[in-house]
């Protein structure tokens, strides 16, 4: 529906444009370009500023900043490794939980649920996305964290304790709790985007597949998901973007320790949580500069993920679709 409307209006616009030379098109085009340029300028400005303000720590700490996990403001020793590790691992946990779940949710809403139920659930998922992250953080700290320590973590420890990641004492705050909270925060975004993607699959494609005798499972797997793969991957990266930079909720539940532990129960930290905790009281210039460099690293990590996503998408679209 939406696609049709769009194309017809574009056609009428261009006809009118051809009819009389003068139109609002030119100024509008420049306006759009200016807005785009503003975004670019902001990004470049931010990047330049991050580099400029972190030169002190780059000069003093060098590459050691990336390979050391020691963080000692008193002695002026700073290492980003534990923060980088925490950011990547907590995001990975979040996506491992959230992506399969949101695909399933989206499929249920689009393919299986009765229409009325589907719209009700769809709205409630979108409402979830509107909850501010501090609420997730407080809820995680007061209710969900203790629940994890009392039930989930002992369970994992008992049955999967042979894995190093599930060893150690269960704790209400730590990497696993942070990852799960992040998953819950990411879920509404990814699943509502995936739902929209699956809704855009042309009914005629699905109907013809059914006509050929395909089962619901086969239609879902080979038609819907295949058709929407681009959007689904896009949704995953939207979730990744949200998880990787999430600050408040993570700060409350990750435990805030500058350490790398094999166990997911142990307290850890992320780049965003370190910044949230330490920026206000960073009292030496090297300290402040090290924190800015952490911000720069987060910026670069996001950029790398973005680039990888784009490349992969191009590959998938070219090679994946029948």
């Amino acid at each position: 529906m939406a696609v049709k409307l769009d194309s017809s209006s574009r056609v009428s616009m261009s006809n009118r444009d051809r009819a009389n030379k003068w139109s609002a098109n030119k100024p509008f085009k420049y306006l759009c370009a200016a807005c785009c340029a503003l975004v670019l300028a902001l990004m470049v400005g931010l990047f330049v500023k991050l580099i400029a303000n972190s030169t002190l720590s780059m000069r003093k700490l060098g590459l050691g900043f990336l390979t050391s996990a020691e963080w000692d403001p008193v002695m002026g020793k700073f290492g980003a490794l534990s923060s980088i590790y925490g950011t990547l691992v907590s995001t990975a946990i979040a996506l491992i939980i959230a992506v399969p779940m949101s695909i399933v949710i989206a499929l249920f809403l689009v393919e299986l649920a009765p229409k009325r139920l589907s719209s009700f659930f769809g709205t409630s998922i979108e409402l979830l996305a509107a909850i501010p992250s501090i609420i997730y953080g407080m809820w995680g700290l007061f209710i969900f964290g203790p629940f994890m320590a009392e039930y989930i973590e002992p369970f994992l420890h008992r049955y999967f304790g042979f894995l190093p990641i599930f060893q150690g004492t269960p704790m209400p705050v730590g990497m696993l709790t942070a990852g799960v909270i992040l998953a819950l925060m990411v879920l509404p975004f990814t699943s509502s985007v995936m739902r929209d993607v699956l809704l855009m699959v042309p009914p005629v494609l699905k109907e013809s597949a059914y006509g050929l005798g395909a089962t619901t499972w086969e239609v879902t797997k080979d038609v819907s998901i295949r058709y929407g793969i681009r959007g689904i991957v896009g949704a995953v990266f939207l979730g990744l973007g949200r998880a990787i930079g999430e600050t408040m909720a993570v700060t409350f539940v990750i435990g805030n320790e500058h350490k790398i532990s094999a166990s997911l129960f142990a307290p850890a930290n992320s780049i965003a949580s370190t910044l949230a905790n330490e920026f206000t009281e960073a009292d030496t210039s090297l300290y402040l500069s090290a924190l800015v460099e952490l911000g720069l690293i987060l910026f670069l990590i996001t950029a790398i993920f973005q680039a990888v996503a784009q490349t992969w998408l191009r590959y998938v679209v070219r090679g994946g679709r029948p």
Partner: protein
Amino acid sequence: MKAKLARAFIILIAFATVLTAIGCGRQPVRPPSERKGVVINGAGATFPYPIYAKWANRYYELTGVRINYQSIGSGGGVQQIKAGTVDFGASDAPLTAKELDQFGLIQFPMVMGGVVPVVNIKGIKAGDLRLSPETLAGIYLGKITKWNDPALKRDNPGLSLPAKSITVVHRADGSGTTWIFTNYLDKISKEWHTRVGFGKAVNWPVGIGGKGNEGVSAYVQRVDGAIGYVEYAYALQNRMSHAKLKNKSGNYVDPSAASFQAAAAGADWKNAPGYYVVLTDQPGKDSWPITGASYIIIHKKQNNLTKAKAMLGFFDWSYRHGGEMAKALNYVPMPKSVVDLVEMRWKQELKANGKAIWP
């Protein structure tokens, strides 16, 4: 850096405008009523925020002088006063005399309070647990890991302690509370001094970090076997179980306004350059060992006489009439001898256009 300069520039312009408006500040002493409408901006420590806010509110009702205090943290307060973007900064950690001179600043203690170790052990009530300095340091160094450790048993004969693991909780954000707490550990433990040191944020040997007093207290209240440290007022409001501490004179004391005051009584404010006095581990049989003062930092050279007078007027009023309000919020007001000393210093050192501001 540039942002700071820009901010300083804007403030400068604002100052200049105000100065021109009132005739370059060469005005006769104005009675308090004429200060009505003056706005003073301050920023810094979160620890004294409740009492500063209360004083400011009452002072506004009395005089019409508005004090805006933003509790952005001690570090932020120090940076902002150095950059000149606020009229006064506030910090729980005093600046050294050298740093003060470098930026032409003066600091003075405004109010005092204490930091209290809080525990959550099933069956142990507030004040039941006693901790000697060695034991507290041992716990925070990660050497004492069980509540039934011999060291704890030695401190607490007759108290049955469980064989539970100790979960150490500390502040994750940089904070004046941490500065005071680690300063104490630094003084009483050689190993802490060499391994960790003290500061608003340190490299903690063990434990989990909570954001703010509320983060620490949430962890302590939810983990059985946890120990943490919070500001006294916070421990009281949340009915947390504090531990008794052994002070320098060898007595186990409870935290209270009286024991904070006892710790402050012996302090030699007079001979401390820049009032760099740290009230941890003070002598005296009733002294609470982890006591600290919160400081106000202002520029020695003020640009605006009216504003400077209004600001000092507020501090003076708070010193002399704000004591009861402070006590009601579990802070300890500065003793009169210290107030007189501070105001003497104002008289000698604070100038606006070469003229003394106070009184």
